[in-house]
């Protein structure tokens, strides 16, 4: 990667089919987040290419990748990444508004209801529990109907019970929407629920 001649990912070749669910596991510092950043078009690779739905992300500039992310990519993060200034509803509406969708509010309300939060749409993130915040994040991720969803340690900040609920909800929505899922975790039981498991070890990919 950039700067100090440090090679984080080495010779990774990976193909994920539409509708497939893939888990990427590995220890801390194995390069999971870097790989996720590249796959999702959040980062630029110094060498190699990433292609989603026939679009070469390397050929786009940051603004081009941003538009691409808005149309095709959804995210669920370990630390939820909700905007504290916006209510639950506004957080879910945000990606829809960015795409200029006219029925943003209806759609956002639908997905919030789907994750069981229709009673809390007007709450701000700080007024919600961790599990509730992650459900808002799920609703936001699916509301824009992405073709591929990236989840980065989605249960990392939650207790076991809450985390299990979130994962159930994630897979349920994934099945309903037919989304491709790329899940980064170090939790093997979570990884087991995916169709395919890949392990990163010292920057190299090992098929399990």
């Amino acid at each position, binding site marked *: 990667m950039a700067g100090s001649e440090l090679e984080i990912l080495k010779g990774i070749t990976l193909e994920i089919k539409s509708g497939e669910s893939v888990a990427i596991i590995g220890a801390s510092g194995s390069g999971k987040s870097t790989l996720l950043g590249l796959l999702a078009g959040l980062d630029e690779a110094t060498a190699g290419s990433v292609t989603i739905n026939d679009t070469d992300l390397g050929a786009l500039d940051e603004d081009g990748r941003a538009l691409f992310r808005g149309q095709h990519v959804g995210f669920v993060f370990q630390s939820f990444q909700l*905007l504290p*200034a*916006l209510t639950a509803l506004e957080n879910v509406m945000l990606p829809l508004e*960015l795409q200029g969708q006219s029925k943003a509010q209806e759609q956002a309300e639908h997905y919030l209801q789907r994750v069981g939060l229709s009673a809390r749409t007007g709450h701000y993130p700080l007024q919600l529990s961790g599990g509730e915040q992650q459900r808002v994040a799920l609703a936001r991720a699916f509301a824009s109907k992405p073709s591929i969803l990236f989840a980065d340690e989605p249960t990392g900040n939650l207790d076991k019970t809450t985390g299990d609920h979130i994962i159930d909800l994630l897979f349920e929505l994934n099945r309903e929407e037919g989304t491709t899922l790329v899940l980064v975790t170090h939790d093997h039981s979570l990884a087991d629920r995916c169709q395919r498991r890949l392990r990163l070890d010292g920057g190299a990919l090992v098929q399990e």
Partner: protein
Amino acid sequence: MSITATKMLARDWRGGELGVLVMALVLAVGVVSGISAFTSRLQNALEQESHRFLAADVVVSSSRELPAQWIEKSDVDGLQHALTLQFPSMVYVGEDTMSLASVKAVSEAYPLRGALTYSTEPFGAVVSADAGPRQGEVWLDSRLFALLDVTIGDTVTVGEATFVVAAAARTEPDQGSSFYGYGPRVLMHYADIPATGVVQPGSRVEYRHLYAGASASIADFTQWLEPQLQDGQRVITVEEGQPGISNALDRAESFLLLAGSLAVVLAGVAVALAARRFSERHHNYVAIIKSLGATSGTINRLYGSSLLLLGLMATVIGCLLGWGIQALFFYLFADQMPVQPGPSGVRPYAIGAVTSLTCLLCFAWPPLRRLGQSSPLRVLRRDLPLEGRRAIQDYALGLLAITLLMWWYSADWKLTLAVLAGLALTAGLGFCLALTLLRGGRLVGMSAGSIWRLALAGLQRRGTANALQVVIFAMAIMMLLMLLLVRTSLIDEWQAQLPDDAPNHFMINIGPEDVQPIEQALRLENITSEPFFPMIRGRIMSVQGADLPITDDVEEGRRQREINFTWSDTLPADNKLLAGQWWEPGTEEALVSLEEEFAERMGIEVGDTVGFLVGSQVLETRVASIRQLDWQSMRPNFFLVFPPRLLAAYPATFMTSFHLDATEKSFLNRFVRNFPTVTVIEMDVVVEQIRTIINQVSAAINLVLIVILAAGGLVLVAGVQASVDARVHESAILRALGAQRRLILGGLLIEFATMGMFAGLLATVAAELSVFILQTTVMEMDYTPTPWIWPLGIVAGTVIIGALGVFSCRRVVSAPPVEVLREL
């Protein structure tokens, strides 16, 4: 997106840095527009005031009757007009009692500006008159009542006409300072002139046409008039106004402009600091929004529109504040204003808006603009460095903006450069010093207790950031000290100039034989007077052997003219020797000492020979020295001073000045009865007026100082806030590790107080330098060192920064560490 922008704005308000940003903008706009509106209204009022001294907007004077078609033209132009005629004449009561008087005949419209005053008994309570004396009536100077032994209702004769004494004439707006002229005043109606039969061709008279109206019409009229002037006809305009007050006001204006400029700098710094903190806190938000598909254009529009909205809000509130500041001032002092100040117009508020826009573009926008370039990868990796957040071009842009704003605002390069020099000194010296001292602190701290170790380690770890912070604190404190210093010396000087017992009456035409009895009379009444100065009238004839031109229709300039001299063995009090030497007492040499401006006008230097005509004798003298006078002192002042021996042979009268309280005015009645030949000139109204104006301006200066203090406080708050996040985060970790409240707060207090102390020290040094430059170049005052600001600057810096720092970080000990760590 606009809904999201306003929403975000509303919620971000809680973060604090938006509050500082808006407050800083509001203060900048408020102070700038307030000061601007204040000075323009005050100037407007003073211009009206100066028109008052003419009794009109423009005056034409001549020793011969002025053309009547000028009056007709002024009517066509929609101007008001009035006529006056002044001439010396004897006033009689019966056959034997008489006195020489200066008669002034005025038409009904007189005065067009200002007011004529009278009293119903000599030296009695002063009343404003709607018009001058009616036909057949006269008003007499108070002392004429004693001289002629008349009372109200008696009759007096001027020339061939007899008049009823209707009142005591007290003041005319245009009586001016030409009190050496004739005798006491007699006012009569203009239409009574023919009846007196006194005015004949060749009489020594002065005709005046007075005109007043809208300033544009007056300007047009004057332009039309000037080419038609013939020899001996002269236009007098307001520019020949009152030098005494205008000097004080010029300095006050310099001060206010300085204050305004400093407000802009302070507000600019506060805006920049707040915007930077806002931007740093928003990099994470932007990363989220970008990960959801927002382009950099969308981000720029989002933050740009937020900023514009904020700017608009702040500008409106700021203009209201500015309007409020000056309105409050004029409301508080309405009773004391000599004239009602006119409206300021929209210009001050336009200036405020431009200031706001410049602050937004040059201080707030650069850090926010970089948000657009923020990497979306921060959603995965929060520890990504914020690239180029302290770009050098931001500082350059800020400096340029500050310089241009200050210059535009003060229209004074010297003032701008003096402030910039102070700022540069603070920045340069301060950064090096702070860095060195903060590093040195580490060594001392090693052996100290744990609170100190913690605090000093903190100072050292963020060495560069802290040095920058110290510099910002120092700049704010420096500007406040600077303003405080200039304000104090200005007000002190004014008060020294016009103490409560400043002379407010002049006494002239004192015969040598009356000097001692008058001194005694004054002593008996416990009235302290200035020394008695001998006064001789003579004519300046030649310089370096060459005769000066003889022209009587120019007031100023190089020409032969009548002038009053005095003699003295010692340099008069308040006079300052600028060149040459004062003579040995008792010298018999033919020497003379000249006043600075007089010498300049006549083109005379030390060593030149100057010829005078005194009586019928020509005196050739050598210029021994040039003096500077204090014209505002209300003491007798003379252009020319000779050694006593030189003039001892000539007959002289004496003059002096003294202070008389309003309650002691009746003394004058008795006095003029005992000394009928002496002329007393009452200046108490004028002195009181000057004092009132100076008090008002002092109050304005204090008011402005308070507002600027608030702006300085904001910079300190913004500066402290800039580092609060990192400090709170570290303290939360320490708390989590079990550190006591006392240890954390103590550490923070030491950290901030140490920075405050350095900042205070630096600020004091830089303030002394800037004030020195300002006072000696811009304000034209004498520089006096001010040791008291040293402890003030250092203690204030330590206490205020220490307290603000601990206050801003207080949450770290009140909220659970987990909550604090999660939020950041």
